[in-house]
């Protein structure tokens, strides 16, 4: 990185030539609110998803801040214990189901997958449109019922508590079921699109790595989501009719609930993080000016994570009386995820090595991603060891771990994608200085929020507890201070991006000088993506051929 030189790395626009936005793009090809609400255009659906998921993110973020403020003092600060239970449940459900799972696939996957493949649209545009309404309906039902019914079970809805709590849970569970449909529809659409919509020359090994990441994600969405849907419905039926399916007092088995729940909810972590890994693969090569190192390995390791992820769920259940053999098997399988992730990490770093690195905001997020994945991943390997898990189980250590790997990494991928593709989506550039500042704030704030929580967990502070012992106050205050930085960073991003949509400098077709089909259409793209179906005759990354030196690097 010492020899990085931004001027060489990022194509500068030719001086004196005034760039103009295209007169007609997908933004103004059809006018009127109806042309948006009934649009079958994958790009418009992606934009609509962006609005909806960001509303979810805002709501989840406000709730997170409320939780952190509550923890400023060991006793009651701003809310009572009952409210606290509801707030952390709502925070978890909203962030997971309304933001993290749909965010990257539904926004950037919808917008860019057909563009990157050279297709006119996804395979089933009407199902795509339907998915957003299903998402909206599920989200409304879920949030309404959680606010009105005061769901206090945590996002995991563990039986038997979820069967006996007086809060009204059934509508929220049906909300989970409904929103699962939207996730399935998106995943199904992407798999079929990737299999059938590739133009001539776009072989599997010429697909961009973001497409590979989305493909692996979609497999999980299609195969795992039905199981959590069924589990949610069974729990709701159980509450309504008392069949006893998960209720030990009636002969049912609550551990069965946990198996069914985690069969989805563990792979769901990879639904969140795999698309982010895809984004990182794109961004790291563009801003290092080098082809992705070990393209095939990065592509296959996405499938590897998806596959292994299906057989790791039992590590959530080490303390449920699982046999020693099961615990050992689940522990080893869980550690395999670390192997595949490490393959990716080494390849990304290998891509940077001796590249011509441009330290722009998307690249800063790549660095943040690497830190969170390595640190979160290593605590993950530690926590999947049975003996350590028993010590850390249900403490803040677990909270910090999954926020690092699942939230931190996904957010870095999301923000990298947002900044990298912003000029393509909106046709204008964001302000680099503000972007760097907020990237710094967010990465710093995230670490400051969650590193204290690792320590708190190791001290023994249990998760989901309303009060804590007074000696833990210092670290809790530090964590809250960190999350305020985080919140401030996001606020900045919101402001400068909204400003840039209207007043940013016109970006041109390919402001980063990136390879990839999505950069070969105007920014923003026209309604039908390409004037004629592109013929692909080269690899996805054409920055530097094997053996070529980047000219300005001085060894």
């Amino acid at each position, binding site marked *: 990185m010492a020899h990085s030189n931004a001027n060489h790395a990022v194509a500068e626009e030719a001086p004196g030539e005034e760039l103009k936005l295209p007169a007609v793009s997908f933004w103004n090809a059809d006018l009127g609110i109806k042309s948006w609400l009934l649009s*079958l255009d994958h790009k418009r659906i992606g934009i609509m998803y962006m609005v909806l998921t960001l509303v979810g993110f805002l709501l989840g973020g406000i709730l997170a801040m409320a939780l952190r403020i509550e923890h400023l003092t060991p006793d009651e600060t701003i809310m009572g214990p009952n409210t606290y239970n509801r707030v952390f449940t709502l925070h978890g459900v909203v962030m997971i189901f309304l933001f993290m799972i749909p965010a990257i696939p539904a926004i950037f996957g919808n917008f860019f997958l057909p563009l990157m493949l050279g*297709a*006119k*649209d*996804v*395979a*089933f*545009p009407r*199902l795509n449109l339907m998915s957003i309404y299903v998402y909206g309906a599920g989200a409304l039902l879920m949030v309404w019922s959680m606010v009105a019914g005061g769901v206090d079970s945590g996002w995991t809805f563990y039986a038997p508590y979820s069967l006996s709590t007086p809060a009204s849970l059934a509508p929220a569970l049906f909300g989970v079921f409904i929103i699962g449909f939207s996730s*399935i529809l998106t995943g*199904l*659409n992407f*798999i*079929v*699109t990737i*299999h*059938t*919509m590739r*133009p001539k020359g776009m072989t599997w090994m010429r697909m961009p790595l973001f497409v590979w990441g989305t493909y692996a994600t979609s497999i999980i969405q*299609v*195969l*795992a*989501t*039905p*199981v959590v*849907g*069924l*589990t949610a419905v*069974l729990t709701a*039926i159980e509450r309504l*009719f*008392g*069949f*006893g*399916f998960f209720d030990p007092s*009636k*002969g*049912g*088995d609550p551990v*069965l609930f946990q*198996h*069914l729940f985690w069969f989805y909810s563990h792979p769901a972590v990879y639904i969140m993080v795999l698309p982010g890994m895809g984004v990182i693969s794109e961004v790291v090569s563009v801003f290092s000016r080098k082809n992705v190192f070990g393209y095939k390995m990065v592509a296959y390791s996405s499938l590897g994570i998806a596959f292994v992820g299906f057989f790791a769920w039992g590590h959530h259940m080490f303390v449920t009386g699982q046999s020693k053999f099961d615990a050992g098997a689940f522990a080893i399988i869980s550690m395999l995820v670390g192997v595949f992730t490490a393959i990716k990490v080494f390849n990304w770093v290998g891509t940077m090595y001796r590249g011509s690195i441009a330290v722009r905001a998307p690249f800063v997020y790549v660095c943040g991603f690497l830190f969170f994945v390595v640190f979160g991943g290593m605590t993950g390997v530690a926590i999947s060891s049975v003996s350590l898990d028993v010590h850390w189980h249900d403490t803040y250590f677990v909270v910090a771990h999954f926020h690092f790997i699942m939230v931190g990494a996904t957010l870095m991928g999301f923000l990298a994608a947002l900044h990298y593709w912003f000029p393509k989506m909106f046709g204008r550039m964001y302000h680099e200085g503000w972007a760097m500042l907020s990237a710094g704030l967010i990465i710093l704030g995230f670490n400051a929020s969650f590193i204290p929580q690792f320590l708190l967990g190791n001290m023994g502070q249990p998760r989901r507890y309303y009060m804590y012992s007074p000696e833990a106050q210092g670290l809790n205050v530090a964590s809250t201070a960190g999350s305020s930085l985080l919140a401030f960073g996001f606020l900045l991003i919101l402001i400068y991006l909204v400003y840039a949509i209207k007043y940013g400098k016109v970006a041109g077709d390919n402001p980063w000088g990136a390879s990839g089909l999505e950069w070969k259409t105007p920014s923003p793209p026209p309604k039908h993506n390409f004037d004629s*179906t592109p013929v692909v005759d080269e690899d996805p990354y054409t920055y530097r051929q094997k053996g070529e030196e980047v000219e300005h690097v001085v060894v």
Partner: protein
Amino acid sequence: MSSSEAHSHNPYLAHHFETIEQQSYAARLGMWLFLATEVLLFGGLFLGYTVYRWLYPETYQACADLLSIPMGATNTVVLITSSFTAALGYHAIKVDQVKKGVALLWVTIVLAGAFLVIKYFEYAHKFHEGTLPGKWYTFEGLQAPGANIFFAVYFLATGLHGFHVVVGMTILAILAVRAQQGRYHAKNYVGVELGVLYWHLVDLVWIFLFPLLYLI
């Protein structure tokens, strides 16, 4: 949104596909993936069945004896026959014998209806006996632990299956009406193929449910 001018020569080709083969491939793959999600949806219930069978083996035996094998067997025959007529109907439409195809689809729907009628009598008998699970379980003849769990599995699995039968009947009826209107024929039959695929899945789930619940 509408089929674009470039492809106006084939009204069945959507604007974003290049060829009709590509479109059919996409439709078939989509349907198979959807069927995979259905298998996993039922998979959760089959897992529940297995876990509780292992916990309460004797009760499962006693409960299975309460189910009527003749009725279940009749229903199995009815449903397999309906799958056969559905496949014949699809084939007829594919070789442009639309009238015959429509008739066979209606026969399928009638058989599906017969399945539901028999299921209704079975359910009514169970309601009368008092083997509904949970607080409605009042059956004096069998008060073993796990009996209400068996019937929970029974009603949830056959209920979810019954719901699929209703959905399948609706799909087949829509296909039959549209084929009657001349929408499906030798040049455009993939829609029928997908509907019949779904119907085969409904049949297949029952082929697993019948021995698991009634016979063993």
